């Protein structure tokens, strides 16, 4: 028996007499594992009294300015760099931001989940944009590192990266890393946000950071605040900005809150909890028709 939880272990050996991926019933009651029981879900139940403590959130972006007062320090600051032989490595970097976008996202998460632990991987290597290969390298590293939540306020429209991105987000889903991804700001197709394995977020124009809505028409799962959002910016500044980029970290922050209170929620459970606590589902007359 090992310290590694089942969701992070390599595939189990094939058991003779049972088709692949299956187990004998005798093995089932074997190993105990922790579960967060889901009661009647209310917002209070979901995150009441939580501050995100103990949850590790990674921001894949342009870097995060660690000493920005609205960010309040980062645990790990990494960047994707060319190892010199054409391969990409994720290596430690100064906690700085080339553009401001990553710092803005980090500040939103911090606002909602002040106790969460923030890390940064710079994948937008020029600040304004980055290569698909750097994005894949950064995401792969973050999944391997076992973060609880990964915020991706970015996407690629290039089909060549779709399959590999899907594989990585599926991997994250099974390994209990919640990937929160923002939808594209233009009505175009891009990735990874339309994948079922991620929590996809677009914006609504309300002013409350904790108000979000469930969207019954996929591929966008939730709408969170994203219009005229006050955010941190590079150089210690603060600006007001708009974009789906800033809706995603709201859901990432709320996810951190929920996970800090219910440590053992799997990503599919977390999505259920997010749904049940959404403004239009949880509130009476919020829009959802509750069927017994």
């Amino acid at each position, binding site marked *: 028996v090992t310290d590694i939880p089942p969701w992070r272990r390599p595939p189990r050996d094939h058991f003779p007499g049972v088709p692949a991926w299956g187990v004998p019933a005798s093995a089932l009651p074997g190993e105990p594992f922790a579960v967060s029981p889901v009661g009647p879900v209310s917002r209070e139940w979901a995150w009441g009294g939580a501050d995100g403590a103990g949850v590790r959130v990674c921001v894949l972006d342009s870097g995060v300015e660690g000493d920005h007062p609205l960010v309040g320090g980062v645990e790990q600051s990494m960047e994707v760099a060319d190892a010199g032989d054409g391969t990409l490595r994720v290596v430690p970097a100064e906690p700085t931001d080339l553009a401001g976008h990553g710092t803005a996202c980090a500040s939103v998460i911090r606002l909602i989940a002040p106790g969460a632990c923030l890390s940064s991987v710079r994948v937008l290597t020029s600040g304004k*944009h980055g*290569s698909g290969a750097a994005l894949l390298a950064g995401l792969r590293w973050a999944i391997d590192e076992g973060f609880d939540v990964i915020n991706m*306020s*970015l996407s*690629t429209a290039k089909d060549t*990266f779709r399959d590999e991105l899907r594989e990585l987000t599926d991997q994250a889903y099974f390994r209990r890393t919640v990937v929160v991804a923002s939808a*594209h700001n233009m*009505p175009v197709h891009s990735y990874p946000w339309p994948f079922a394995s991620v929590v996809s977020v677009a914006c609504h124009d309300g002013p409350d950071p904790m108000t979000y809505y469930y969207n019954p028409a996929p591929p966008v799962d939730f709408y969170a605040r994203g219009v005229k959002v006050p955010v941190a910016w590079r150089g210690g500044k603060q600006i007001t900005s708009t974009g789906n980029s800033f809706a*995603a970290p709201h859901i990432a922050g709320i996810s951190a809150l929920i996970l800090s209170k219910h440590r053992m929620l799997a990503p599919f459970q977390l999505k259920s909890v997010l749904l049940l606590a959404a403004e239009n589902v949880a509130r009476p007359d919020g829009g959802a028709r509750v069927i017994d």
Partner: protein
Amino acid sequence: MDIVGSTALAERMDPEALRQIMDRYFAACGTAIAEHGGIVEKFVGDAILAVFGATVTHEDDATRAVRAAVSALAALRDLSAELMASYQVSLEARCGICTGDVLVTLVADGDFRVIGDAVNTASRLQTAAPAGEVLLAEGTAAMVRSQVAIEPVPALSLKGKSRAVAAWRVTSPALPAADRPAAVAPLIGRDEELEELRQSFRRATRRRQACLTTVLGGPGIGKSRLVQEFLGTLRDGEVTVLSGRCSAYGKGVTYKPLAEMLGSYPGGWTALAALLSGGQGRLAARSLATVIEQAPLAVGESVGVEDISWAVRYLLDILARARPLILVWEDLHWSEQTLLDLVDDVATWLTDVPVLLLCVARTELLESRPGWGGGKPCALALELGPLTYEQSAALVTELAMSEDVYPQEQYEACERVARLCDGNPLFAELLLDVFADSAPAGQVPATIQALLGARLDQLPGPERALVELAATIGREFTRDVLDAMAQADGISEPETGVLLTRLARRRIIRPGPSGSYSFAQTLLRDTAYTFTPKKRREHWHEFLAQRFAAGEQAASWEPLTMAYHAEAAARLHRELQPGDPLLPAQALAAADVLTAEGMRALGRKDLPAAIALLERARELLPPGDARHTALALHICDAGLGLWDESGPMAALAAAEAAVPASRRNAAACAVTRLLVMLRLGLAPPARVAADAAVIEAGLAGDPDDHLSWSRLHQLQAHVHLVAERAAAAEESLRLALARARAMGDGYEEERLTCALCELAQWTPTHVQAGLDLCGALRVRFAANRGLLVPVLVTQAYLSALAGDVPAARHALGVARASTGPLHLDLADAAVMEMAGFVESLAGEHRAAESHYRHCLTVLRRAHGAPDTQNIEVAIARELFGQGRPQAAELSLNQVEAGPGGMSTRARIASTALRGRILSARDRHDEAVALALGILELSERADDPCLAGQALSDLAVVLRAAGREEQAAHAAGTAQRRLAAKGAVVLASRVRDWLDGMEGDLP
């Protein structure tokens, strides 16, 4: 390329080691050359002569050569490092590249040799190059500039060259990314249309059919882009694609797009001409050469629009039999009507070969041709509408975000562009460019034109100046012409190169093959042109006119281009200084060029183009110039061919205003005005005759005014013809012809000769004289079958009269062979009518009736409703000849009940036939009364056959009424007149009847 210091090396090395070193040098460089598609022609000592594009040419042969040279030098550097280790020697080489015509001689085993000045120049450049460098000659530099980084070096004095030679040094085999022209915009939201194009092509291929597909839409909507995408999906070697573009300037130059299209065939017109062999092929080649190479025609020879259309179909048929063919006609809304007819003809008549006619046009095309593509079994019109907001957004995103990954901040610019662009891809692209260069502050231009203007306004001064120069040249321009202008404008040649590279990067211009460029969009060029101050445009048009007029021997001699620029300069000058009559220096030369081109168009009966060109020429002639008169008359001739009244009248008025003081001009115009009125039925013949007499009296004082006299005689000939006075008409035409010869006017001479030839059918002149004329004209009109057919018809008629029915039938067979493939419906009707006459003469009345009826059907279908009375009377005559008097009578009743009065000719023929019918029913008194009623009219008719028929009918009626003496008199007159004409068959029939040897006359 050659090794530097190889002699010293040879002295120092053991020969065996040297051999090994040299082998490795040749192998390394040979590989580099072969990788870029070059062929090593030979090794001379240590030198290598490599050739690019000698046996197979590529658009980028020059670039390939430069890159091969650079990689050969790099390979040598690597080799040298190895040699240093093992032999303690280092090798260095240098290269020279020159582009030019060389003679390629194939020798055994597919090997070849090249000879030419380019080889020598390359060798001399090589000698002058520093070690490890590549020097380029001027021509090569011009061709690679958009692909390779180069810089000029001081001019070199080379051995064997009298003057210093300009040279360029290669600094990098590729341009830095920032200097490369931007990629083509993506195609968004046109999947269905693209599939439609593929479907059209599949249909053409599968059914072996000519399909006409027209892509319609406003400027910038993506028509050309769609076609480009479609063509890009075709596999090499699977299909032949030819394309030609119509342009807004150069009006009247009907076949320029066709010439461009055939020139786009690999190997150009020369290669196409080689496909045209055999009698028909040679005829097609000759017809096409007149429009493609502007091949000169022999005096009096001409090629008609129908012949050109036929020749194009003949050629396309050959091409499409080899593999499917796609013809792309760009900007067809600017086409002349005659070219539209040609495209339509190809779509209609080309059968059993896979051809896709892909027309690209603005929707204006449907205004000038509402029925375009209609009635064809395989025609399709695709109208490109605006993109949806989503599609616009996708396009904008693709254009603006070329990298892989982007954060999802708000792209304010992108969103605004997607909303503002009205679903127009070009508009979107331009808006993005505007926003990229400056933040979108304040008002955004609301229309695409205004936007293009704003885009141009953002250009830095020197780039803007260069764009203006280029726009004055046109949508396409070449580097040498632009260089000449830029230099005159104070921009040095290297600077021009830099500016062009920047403009290409901004997607304003696009580099083409061999030193040519074009504006990225037609609309962009037009806007740049409109935004250039008129004074500046006038100046540069005059500059260009001067350049393109630089002597017929010079390579820059492009008469039509010269004329266009001279014209533009003149127009702008008039707009700027309306009161100043000054014309550019080249105006007269340009007017002559346009007149010559207009007369060529007139010669091939391309009437709308002829009018356009001649009117353009008129605008370049100063007031008082004597050439105004002839121009007006020729515009009238073309206008009459189109049954148009206003054009000719306006042309005459313009000539009278331009040369008010000239009596000769006034006379010629007055005569021609009467001719127009008579031909179009605007004035009664009697009044025209009276007015003509007044003019004739006035002309008596000027016996040497040949033009006016010639035209007056032509007018008189028409007056005579209307009154069935063919002999008098012929006499007038002869006088007119003598005048035409006296003034050496080949055009008038040809028209008059044709008229005389046709008239020979109806005059008393002996058939032999007519046949001689026909023989001469047949040779002359071999390549213009529109003109040839009337000659053949006349020849058939005269041969039949002379008793040679087989010759007549043969002539008609030749004529039908021409009218069929050329789809000359009216000419076909004339052939059928004549076939009816010939068969009637041969006693084949049923066959004759059938021919006449066929002719009647065609004429009734034809545009402009020609007069059919004579045919209908002829049918009645054939019915009577078949022994069906009742049917004949019914037929005559119908003719006489028809609208309008009957012509003299129809009245004589129908009354004579009625007399015969009554007589056959023994109603002799009525018959005699009728027949005698037209006696005077018949005797006065100049046409011996018409008179002969009427008089012999009278004779039959009289004899049946028992008035033998009068009958003999009438028959005698008929017989004499027919004999005088040489109509031996008819004459002997009447004589035999008189002698009682023939029972009855037909």
